[in-house]
C-alpha cells in the first residue's frame, strides 16, 4: 500500500538545459501511464477512501474511487434496535452535523406515526435552531479541513475555534459535544438553557468575524484560487443525472434546497436565500458553503426572535416517556416506561421516504415498518454517497494535486457515505 502521495510538483515540466523555445507545444513530456494508489489512509483525505489511479506523469487518466472502509452497518444495527435506540446511530452517520441527521430521522418516524403535524411548535423551532447550528459546524469543518489540506493552517485554526464555540453551546443543551442524540420522536429531549439565545447571538457575532477573516484570507488568495478555480467542474445536467444535492448540486447551478422547495418543520416562516454557483468548480463549492453559513445565521437569528414558549415533547403516552416521578411511584407509569424502553414505540406498518436538507444535501430516510418496536428496514439515502460517486467522472484529466481540493470540496463524510 502506497500511503503518501508524491509531493505536488509544478505543473510545467522545466527542462534543465537546452532551448526553451524547442520545447514541444504540449507542456507535458510524453510518459507511459502508471498505476497509483491513494489511500485508504492518506494524509490529504479526511475519512478513509481509496483511489486507484492511472496517471500519466501528473495527470489522472482513470480513477476508481473505492469506499466502504467505514461500513458500520447502520441498517443492520437499526433493524436490531428500537426506534428510539436508532438516534445514536444517526448521530454517527454524518458526524459533522449530527443534529441534522437526528431531525431527519425523527421526522420520518413521526410521519409513519402520523404525528408529524402534532409536534409542539417550540420543539420544531428548537430543531431548526440546533439543526442550523449543526449545518454551521458542518461547513466550518469542511472548509477548515480542506484549507488545511491546502496548507492554510491558519484558516484551520480560525474555523476550529468557531466550531468549538458552537459545540460548547450544543453541549450545554444536549450534554454532548459531538454526538448529541438530542432529538426524540415527538420533540426534543430537553429544553434550551435559559441563556441560550444571548449566548448564541454573541457566538454568531464572533463566527461572522471568523468567517469574514477566512473569506479575506482565502477568497482573494492567489494560491488558493489557483487550486480551486475551474477545477472539477460539474454541470447542472451532471448534478441531475448523478443525483447531486446540497452545496455540491447548488454550486453546479441546480437550485434545489429541500428547505425551500419542500419546506419541513417551520422553515417556510423564515426568510433566507439559496446560494447557487455559476461554474460548478471547486471555488463555487467553497463560495456556496461560505454563503450558506451566512444564510444559516440569518435563519438562526429569525428563529431566536420568534422562538415560542410551550412544551418541547409531544404529550402522547404511547410515544413519549411518562414523568420520572410517576415511573418510580406508580405501577401504571412504570409499565408504560418499561414498554416504551424495552419493546420500543410501536409504529404502525407502512413505508415512508422522508427527506430533509442535510449538511451535504438531500438526506433521505426510507423506512419500512412491520408494526413492531423496530424498523423492518431503515435505509438512509446518503447525499455524499452520490456526491462521492461523481468523482469518478470529474477527476480524470485533472492533476494529482487537484484531487486534494476536489475531494475536500465534495466533502465525503465516511460515516454517511459508507454507513
Amino acid at each position: 500500500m502506497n500511503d503518501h502521495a508524491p509531493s505536488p510538483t509544478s505543473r510545467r515540466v522545466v527542462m534543465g538545459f537546452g532551448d526553451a523555445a524547442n520545447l514541444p507545444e504540449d507542456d507535458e513530456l510524453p510518459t507511459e501511464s502508471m498505476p497509483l494508489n491513494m489511500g485508504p489512509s492518506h494524509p490529504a483525505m479526511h475519512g478513509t477512501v481509496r483511489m486507484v489511479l492511472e496517471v500519466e506523469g501528473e495527470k489522472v487518466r482513470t480513477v476508481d474511487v473505492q469506499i466502504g472502509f467505514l461500513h458500520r452497518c447502520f441498517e443492520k444495527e437499526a433493524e436490531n434496535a428500537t426506534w428510539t435506540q436508532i438516534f445514536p446511530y444517526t448521530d454517527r452517520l454524518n458526524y459533522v452535523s449530527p443534529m441534522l441527521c437526528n431531525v431527519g430521522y425523527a421526522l420520518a418516524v413521526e410521519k409513519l406515526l402520523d404525528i408529524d403535524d402534532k409536534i409542539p411548535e417550540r420543539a420544531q423551532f428548537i430543531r431548526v435552531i440546533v439543526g442550523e447550528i449543526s449545518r454551521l459546524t458542518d461547513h466550518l469543518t469542511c472548509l477548515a479541513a480542506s484549507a488545511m489540506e491546502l496548507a492554510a493552517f491558519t484558516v484551520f485554526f480560525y474555523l476550529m475555534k468557531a466550531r468549538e464555540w458552537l459545540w460548547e453551546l450544543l453541549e450545554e443543551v444536549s450534554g454532548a459535544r459531538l454526538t448529541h442524540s438530542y432529538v426524540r420522536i415527538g420533540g426534543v429531549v430537553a429544553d434550551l438553557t435559559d441563556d441560550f439565545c444571548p449566548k448564541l447571538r454573541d457566538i454568531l457575532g464572533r463566527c461572522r468575524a471568523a468567517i469574514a477573516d477566512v473569506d479575506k484570507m482565502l477568497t482573494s488568495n492567489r494560491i488558493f484560487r489557483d487550486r480551486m478555480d475551474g477545477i472539477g467542474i460539474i454541470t447542472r445536467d451532471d448534478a441531475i443525472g448523478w443525483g447531486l444535492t446540497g452545496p455540491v448540486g447548488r454550486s453546479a447551478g441546480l437550485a434545489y434546497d429541500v428547505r425551500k422547495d419542500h419546506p419541513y418543520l417551520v422553515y417556510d416562516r423564515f426568510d433566507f436565500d439559496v446560494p447557487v454557483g455559476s461554474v460548478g468548480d471547486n471555488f463555487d463549492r467553497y463560495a456556496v458553503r461560505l454563503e450558506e453559513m451566512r444564510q444559516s445565521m440569518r435563519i438562526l437569528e429569525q428563529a431566536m426572535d420568534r422562538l415560542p414558549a410551550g412544551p418541547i415533547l409531544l404529550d402522547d403516552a404511547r410515544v413519549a416517556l411518562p414523568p420520572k416521578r410517576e415511573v418510580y411511584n406508580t405501577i401504571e407509569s412504570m409499565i408504560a416506561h418499561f414498554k416504551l424502553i424495552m419493546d420500543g414505540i410501536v409504529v404502525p406498518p407502512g413505508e415512508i421516504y422522508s427527506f430533509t436538507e442535510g449538511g451535504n444535501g438531500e438526506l433521505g430516510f426510507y423506512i419500512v415498518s412491520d408494526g413492531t418496536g423496530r424498523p423492518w428496514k431503515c435505509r438512509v439515502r446518503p447525499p455524499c454517497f452520490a456526491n462521492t460517486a461523481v468523482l469518478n467522472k470529474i477527476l480524470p484529466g485533472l492533476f494529482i494535486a487537484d484531487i486534494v481540493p476536489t475531494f475536500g470540496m465534495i466533502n465525503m463524510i465516511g460515516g454517511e457515505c459508507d454507513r
Partner: protein
Amino acid sequence: MAGEKQAASGPRAKVKIVIDGRSHEFPAGLTILEACQRVGIKVPFFCWHPGLSAPAVCRQCLVEIRGFPKPIPSCYTPVADKMEVITNSPKVLDVRRQMLEFTLLNHPIDCPICDKAGECLLQKHYFDWDVRLARNDGSKVRKAKVVDLGRHIVLDQERCILCTRCIRVCNEVARQPDLVMAFRGDRQLLTTAPGQRLDNPYSLNTVDVCPVGALTAKDFRFSMRAWELWATPSVCPGCATGCNIEIHAAHDVIRRLIPRPNPAVNKYWMCDEGRLTYKRVHQDRLVAPLVAGAPARWAAALAEVARLMAWARDKSPSSLGVVLSAQTSNEDLFAFSRLASEHLRTDRVYLAGAREGWCDEILVSADKNPNTTGAKLIGGPTVRTAADLKQDLKIGVLKALLVLGEADAVSPLDSLQTLVVLASHQGPLVTAASVALPLAMWAETDGTFTNRQGKVQRLHAAIAPAGQSRPGWEIAARLARAMGAAWTYANAKQVFSEARDKVMLMSGADWGRPESPVQLRFANSRG
C-alpha cells in the same frame, strides 16, 4: 380439554352473529371471544386460556351485547343466533379500563426485578388498552413475596392477579389439584392445598400460563431478562412424544425451553422433565476430535477413521458394524445408513438408544428416544436391535464398530479391535474409542425428528455447535469423501429431501421455510 368439549357439544349447526356491525357465521358452541379472535378482533383477557376451561374471573374480556343490561364476559358466553356484539363501544372500553385499574391497584412496582417483565400480559394490556396515569397513590396490600411452592416453582403472592390459570392447569392438565385460592377480597391469595406441594410432573406449565410474574421457575428466574432471549422453534428430545418447543437462548447459551402450541401433539403443554433436557447441551461436551484419546485436527481424525474403516471393510466386511442411535436426527441417520450400505458395504447395522423410562397417559412416553420411529424407517426392516448388538459383541463376531451417538448397549468392548465413536458427550465409549468425533446436538443443528405418531417435525439450530463439534450428516459426508466417494451434501436440507424421496412414510414430510430467529423483545411484544 375446554376447546374440544365445546366443539363436541351441540350439533355442528352454524349461527349468524353480528360483531361490531359486521355479520359473521360461526359453528354453534364457539364462545364470543374465540369468534372475535377468528375474525381478528382484539379482546383482552387474563384468565382465559385456549387450552383451559373459562371461569370468567378477570372481567377483562367484557363485551356489550345488544339487549343485555350489563357487559358480559365474552370468554364464557357461547355465540347464539342473531346475537349482536359490540367489542369497542366507549362503555365497554371504560369498563375494561376500570377492571384493569382495579387489577393494578395492589400490583407491586416490580417490573425492573420481575422475571415476567417483557412478556407480561398485564403490561401488554395496560399499554394496549389504557395508558392513563395512575389516579390513586394509596398504599398497596402487602403479601408474601418468596413462597416456595415445590420442586420447580416459586410464588410471589403480591404479583398474583388471581386469574386461577395455574389452578386449572393443575386440575385439567396434570390432573392433580395442588393449588387453591384462600381468603377473600383484596386479601385473597394463591397457595397450595393443605399438606400439598406443587410437585406434579407438569408444574412448570403454571409458569407459562401465569399472565404475570407471580409464578416463576427456580431454574430460570434471575438467569436472563426475557426480552434478551432469542426464540427458535424446535422439538423436545426428551421422549418419543416430540412435544413442539421453543428454544430460548442468548449468546449461544440455552436458558429455557417452553412449549409451542400444536393441537396434534402436545396442545399447549410439556412435562417438567422435558423442559430440563436443555441442561445436557451444556454439560461435559466432547469439543474436539480425539485420536487415541489425544485432541486432533478434524482432517487428521477423519483421515484416520477412513483408514481404519477401509481396512476393516477390506479385511472382512462381516466383522464391521455400524450402530445408529434413535437420539439423532433423520438426516444424520440417513447419511450414516447410506455410508454403511454404500461405502462400508456392511449389513450389520444396529439401532440403539436410551433405556426406557417412566410414562403416563398425558404426554410422557416410555421410549426416551426422540426419533425411534424415524430410525426404524430409515434403518429399514434389516436393521438389528440393541439386543443383537450385545449378543454379537459377546460372541465377538464384531471386530470394528462405528457408533453414531451414545448407546449403553455397546458393551462389552473387549472383542473390538477398532471403535470409532461420534459422540456429543464425554463418556466410557469416548474414552474407549480409537477415534472419537464431536457430534453436534439437537439444539445446534437443523434437522428433523419423527415422533411416535410418525409426524416428521423440524429442528432449527438455536445455538452454535459446542467447540468444534459438527452435525452428524456433515461428518458422514466428509467421511465418505475421505473414503473416495463424491458426496455433495452442503446442508441438512439436501440430506432431508433425498431421504424424503428414498424413505417410505417420509414422503409427506415438509422442511419448512427459512426464518430469521427473533428476539423476544421484538416478537410483537407478545405475552
